[in-house]
């Protein structure tokens, strides 16, 4: 699938809509992946699928249909279904036509790597077999996935907007373990050339071995050193809560907080679609993405807002463009450890869930490596623990930040948070 073909399909779907307003979103994903567990390949796939979502509206009612068959006959059938559903729908008090003509969409640089767009199977097999060899050499078991995704997306509307975007993603996510001793790494980039799997596999093997003979941590007050992976695990729950309408309706921790201090001065969160964590240039409605600061130095600056609520409340429409950046500083996780006298190093967080959305209280577990830190050195591993934390409160107590790293959708630093009571429930 090419971007030109995706735009053509979107435009034809809009034409088939046959209503006052129509918009279409086309998404093609080729997903090629090799999955492995216990030092063997367990899955190996290469699939491609296209999905078209057509939304029709008559000025007061609307409905959507999603389909995969892009032949003219199929589009006509789908459009007919959408019109039938629309005609049965009640008038929508929040009806919005598609965005007016002339929307300007940002260009996302370096989002596509030509080699990765071909999804070469030998690259995947080579990386996975290499990881397995390393794990076996260290007497460990490796499990994970090596995936290569090529995505093409396109938008068209009856108001005259046309847009497309193409991107690739190579992800190598793996665990090496023996008993309860484990370590984990996720490597993610647009191109194969930026996936340093050989170096990472040896590091992860050594980290896993160092994680043997875990003990219970000693109760007390500690600085917690979150590796970038743990920060990336935590942030989506914050981001998903940043909705202007739900805040205005009194449903979230952000209610009545716009422009106010709600966390520490060292906490800044933004989304730059053309930044180091690559985002998307438009959403499925055809709204352009923007470089936005959500929280600046602890003060709530922006919330995501759909077009209806934006018009009603005098805001600009704004959405989370599949990327997040947390402002960092200089230095690595190791540098932060060196400056810590009494701390706990946390590599990864797991199974995070909301406990209370109104106060943004989350629960979860640690995973794949928790270590005591004393006088600037990583010492004995401790057992995984459950925590109940409010991230906005945690980030009030940031003691140090390191240099941000790419972790899939996020560009995040290692973070040291002081004054954390342990155990954490």
């Amino acid at each position, binding site marked *: 699938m090419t971007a030109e073909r995706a735009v053509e399909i979107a435009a034809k779907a809009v034409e088939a809509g046959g209503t006052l307003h129509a918009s279409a979103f086309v998404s093609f994903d080729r*997903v*090629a992946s090799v999955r492995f*567990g*216990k030092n*063997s*390949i*367990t*899955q*190996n*796939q*290469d*699939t*491609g*699928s*296209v999905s078209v*979502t057509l939304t029709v509206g008559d000025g007061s009612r*609307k409905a*959507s*249909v*999603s*389909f*995969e068959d892009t032949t003219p006959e199929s589009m006509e059938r789908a459009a007919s*279904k959408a019109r*039938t*559903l629309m005609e*049965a*729908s*009640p008038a929508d*008090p*929040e009806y919005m036509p598609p965005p007016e003509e002339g929307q300007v969409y940002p260009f996302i640089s370096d989002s596509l790597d030509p080699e990765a767009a071909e999804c070469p*199977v*030998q690259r995947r*097999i080579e990386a996975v077999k290499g990881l397995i060899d390393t794990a076996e050499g260290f007497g460990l078991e490796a*499990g*994970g*996935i090596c*995936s290569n995704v090529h995505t093409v997306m396109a938008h068209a509307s009856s108001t005259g907007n046309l847009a497309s975007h193409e991107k690739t993603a190579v992800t190598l*996510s*793996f*665990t090496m*373990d023996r008993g309860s001793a*484990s370590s*984990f790494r996720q490597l993610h980039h647009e191109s194969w050339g930026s996936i340093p799997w050989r170096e990472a596999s040896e590091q992860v093997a050594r980290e896993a071995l160092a994680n043997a003979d875990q003990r219970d941590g000693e109760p007390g007050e500690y600085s917690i050193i979150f590796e970038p992976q743990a920060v990336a695990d935590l942030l989506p729950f914050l981001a998903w809560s940043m909705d202007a309408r*739900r805040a205005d*309706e*009194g*449903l*979230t921790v952000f209610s009545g907080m716009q422009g106010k201090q709600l966390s520490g001065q060292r906490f800044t969160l933004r989304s730059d679609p053309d930044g180091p964590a690559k985002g998307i240039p438009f959403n499925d409605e055809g709204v352009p993405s923007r470089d936005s600061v959500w929280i600046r130095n602890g003060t709530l600056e922006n919330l995501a807002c759909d077009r209806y609520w934006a018009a009603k409340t005098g805001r600009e429409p704004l959405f989370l463009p599949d990327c997040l950046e947390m402002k960092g500083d200089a230095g690595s996780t190791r540098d932060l450890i060196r400056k810590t006298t009494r701390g706990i190093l946390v590599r990864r967080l*797991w*199974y995070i*869930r*909301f*406990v209370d*959305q*109104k106060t943004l*209280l989350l629960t979860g*577990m640690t995973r794949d490596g928790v270590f005591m830190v004393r006088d600037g050195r990583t010492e004995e591993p401790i057992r995984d623990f*459950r925590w*109940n934390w409010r991230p906005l409160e945690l980030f009030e107590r940031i003691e140090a930040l390191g240099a941000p790293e790419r972790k899939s959708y996020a560009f995040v630093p290692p973070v040291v948070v002081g004054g954390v009571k342990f155990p954490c*429930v």
Partner: protein
Amino acid sequence: MMKQAAQRAIEILESLGVSYGDARAETATMEKMVFRNGRLDQGIVRDTAGLGVRAVVGGAWGFGASTGFGLESVDAAARRAFEIAVAASGPAVKRLAPLAPQRGLYRGPLEKDPFSVSPGEKMALLEQVSRETMKDQRIRECYAWLWFENRKRVFASTEGSLVETDLTFSEPFLMATAVAGGDAQSRSLQDGARIAGWEWIEKCDMKGWAEKAREEALEKVLAPESPEGVMDLLLDGIHLSLTMHESVGHPTESDRVLGWESNMAGRSFLEVGDQRSAVYGSHLVNFMADNTLSYGLASWGWDDEGVPGQKWHLVRNGVFQEFGTVRETGPLVGRTYSRGCCRAMDYSSFPINRQPNFILEPGPEGVTPEDLLKDMKLGVMIEGRGSFSIDQRRLNFQFGGDRFQLVRNGRIEGPLKKVIYRSQTPRFWGSCDGIADARWLRTMGVLNCGKGEPAQSARMTHGASWARFRNVNVGGGK
């Protein structure tokens, strides 16, 4: 057309000389209507059709998929599955549990086709339910939805199986969120989805749910917060469906025990040698897996390897019995067969080891929730599903709930909010000392069990009668 597509893929695989191959041709039609605060927030229909092909070459899997059933795309999917299997092949031999060729057609129970009910009637119901729920202005958010899907599948294999399945599921849902006193609390009413038609929507009586959701959301937002300490719990079937799913369903999946999920979903605290020996709970605890349960979401007739639906004990009299398996994992955990737990999210997903339907078997006839309540000195009654989290080995967990009532000296004292409890899997199930009889059995059809890489969602049904647990660590989140 589906049968021809599946058979053609098998012919191609055979001509390429695979050691095993199968093909699933599927069509799916979905309709979902979501009302938020009385307004149609999402009205969508979706049609998909395609073919997924698996091949084994040189001990390695390959999987390809095609959109639609055109000859060219079917051929390409089969050849792609073969080619990438070759790329991963080696000296290893893939051993699958033996299976005699299967033939037949399975249709799930369906009295009234939900797609024959007009969209207007469905939306009128949701609008009315929403309006009734939001009668009190302190209800700031109300979600009401109806979700229907029909899925037809033809499965064929190089071993001679050829089976067809035709399933329709229906799901109603209602949630009300009340805002008062600086807090926001929700109450959801649901029994989840069933393999059933419009008759399931009528039986659920969403109109009757509206007042209950509204009043119980208000009751909750105004309630005092949870006490803290060690106390007893009395849990209903909808609540237990989630606790069971996380602490019983997942750790008894064979692929986790074998380390195939070590990177994402995780492993299990169980080991292969724990079958028929590990103590999982008290002697009252019996978990019966049942992929023949007529309305159960995992009852497909045959799984995605053509293995028939089965019924077996996961846990019997408190002792772990055996894992849910697929054809590849059965022999690896000491079985000569598969329990038929191989299911894929859709035609373009590789089928993996999933949870079966299963229930906590009810207690002896005549036992009521009131009987269980009366000798609780201090405890909490919990209904419905709330916050949930568990470690990757499925031992250390924390659950919330949806409706909470304080129990003191065998009597209900009043509502609570922000209750969570924490325990460890065998300790928790070991503390079960009473289960109400079958009259109180409630099941929950789950549509969104996430697992696998790339991530897939799966469907299954769990249920229980009210059950009592002693001396559990209870507290509010701090």
